[in-house]
């Protein structure tokens, strides 16, 4: 049995076990918290494709995610389509957004791309606030059925969708890592000029990576309005997404497919537990400190830490 098949079978088995375990628990909060963690697995995995392998920092996770969430809202209001077409629309819109930003800035040094993504979120928020069709600054409501057979509840359905997306994103990350694309991106990270000189099509690979990264971030955001039932620009563009999308892969171990998963599960569970017990501002503050301390002391993340010892 080859490694790829083993990975997929293992991931699906783990997913089924999670669903079975939460059903046995029989509490809706389990799905609610589980969704929260899994959305970060998708977001962190998406960031890792560009940031981890190619070393290009995308600060605009909140912007891409909100683009996905608002695409889902528009698709619903305009065509009356539900969640799954919304996810597809989110992938297309956010992917094109990534491609456009990348096309304009990626021919330069990497920092310019980072600065552009940092501003992208601010501008998208301006657009959404001024756009009355999606509710402007008042926000938009999504009313959905409470029950949706064969699932026990709507939250369970959302959880299972997000579980599928998380497994898919991790699988894509792993496939990228093992492919020519991933090796090209790693060459760009280590020395872009040398990579260019030996014939790596650097601009094209970077554009593929930004598009993929943007699309997956959009996908992570698409179910968000369904999850919370109400979405306003402030919540959709929350800095928490941007900081977590960077902190999770870096703490788990950027540039490996498992790193973002480890970081996301660790940090998101911590935050979910902390939101219940302490204030949400303090909770985000802790994430900021963890990011700074980890990049300073363990620049290769948790995985790198173990690899160096082992």
């Amino acid at each position: 049995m080859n490694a790829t098949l083993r990975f997929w079978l293992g991931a699906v088995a783990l997913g089924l076990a999670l669903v079975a375990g939460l059903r046995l628990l029989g509490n809706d909060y389990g799905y609610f918290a589980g969704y929260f963690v899994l959305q970060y697995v998708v977001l962190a995995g998406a960031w890792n494709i560009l940031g981890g392998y190619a070393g290009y920092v995308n600060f605009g996770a909140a912007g891409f995610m909100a683009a996905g969430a608002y695409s889902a809202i528009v698709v619903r209001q305009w065509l009356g389509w539900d969640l799954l077409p919304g996810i597809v629309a989110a992938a297309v819109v956010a992917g094109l957004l990534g491609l456009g930003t990348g096309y304009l800035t990626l021919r330069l040094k990497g920092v310019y791309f980072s600065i552009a993504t940092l501003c992208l979120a601010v501008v998208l928020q301006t657009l959404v606030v001024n756009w009355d069709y999606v509710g402007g600054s008042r926000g938009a409501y999504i009313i959905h059925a409470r029950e949706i057979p064969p699932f026990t509840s709507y939250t369970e359905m959302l959880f299972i969708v997000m579980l599928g997306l998380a497994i898919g994103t991790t699988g894509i990350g792993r496939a990228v890592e093992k492919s020519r694309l991933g090796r090209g991106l790693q060459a760009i990270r280590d020395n872009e000029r040398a990579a260019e000189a030996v014939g790596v099509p650097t601009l094209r690979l970077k554009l593929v990576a930004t598009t993929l990264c943007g699309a997956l971030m959009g996908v992570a955001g698409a179910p968000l309005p369904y999850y919370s039932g109400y979405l306003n620009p402030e919540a959709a563009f929350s800095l928490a997404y941007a900081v977590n999308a960077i902190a999770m892969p870096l703490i788990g171990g950027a540039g490996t497919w498992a790193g973002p998963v480890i970081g996301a599960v660790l940090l998101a569970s911590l935050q979910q537990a902390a939101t219940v017990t302490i204030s949400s501002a303090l909770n985000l503050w802790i994430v900021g400190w963890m990011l700074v301390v980890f990049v300073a002391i363990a620049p290769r993340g948790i995985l790198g830490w173990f690899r160096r010892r082992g």
Partner: protein
Amino acid sequence: MEFDLSLLLNGIVSGLLLGGLYAAAASGLAISFGMLDIVNIAHPALMVTGAFTVVALGGWLGLDPLVVAVLQAPAFYLLGMVIYSAYHHFFEKRGDEALQGLAFFFGIMFIIEVGLVMAFGPEQRFLDPSYAYTTWRLGEIDLPLRMLVPGLFALACIGGLFLYLHRSFTGLAIAAVAQDAEALRLMAIDPVRIKRLAFGISIALASMAGGALVVVQPVEPSSGQVFIGRVFAICIMGGMASLPGCVMAALLFGVVENVTATFYGPSWSPAVAFGWLLLVLAFRPQGLFGKAA
């Protein structure tokens, strides 16, 4: 919409005044990002911190906000030196600037913003110095002192910086470290020490720009986010390391943004910043006033 000449003239003049403030915000970045090659995305957040401490200290001491801004600058200078020391020790020395270094400054920016929310609350803060409601009139043109005084203060700061960089020995050493750090070592000058000093100056400038900012407009903890686009766009447009270029770019930017806000509404001004940034990056990354790389 009816075209109105006096509206346009006033838009240009207050845009120039606003541009002076932007120049102060961006000139610190011209040192750190332009000269030292340190991508300090926390610069606007530190500026907003300066604004908040001006509000807090000004209320306590009962002094004019711009005086407080000058008085507190040494503290920010020290803070900047501490930040640079950490950055150098953990990232620059290891060659990890690109990914981990950027994440470090992002983390600092985030810590500052959330920290300000926790310390001061998310509300807007503003100040009313004695001259806040006086307006000078020159024919059709209004010159509100609320904008004129901070604008002149900002330009005075930049003038002082310019003289320092071009006349003093340390200032020349900063220019030298930007060109060739290793050559400086051969002259028995420690480039790390010079860089630490220069970074401290850039943060001190950020705090003074913050003091000027809070006189012009209300400030909230997240105000820095809009300024990221502005100051980086100005810094790149001005040709990175050039102070005169930075001032020119800032004035131009202030006018374009303010005229847009006058005719289309202020909620669109962040889009102007980003649009400029993208256009500059796509078509003229060496800046409007810079030489081709």
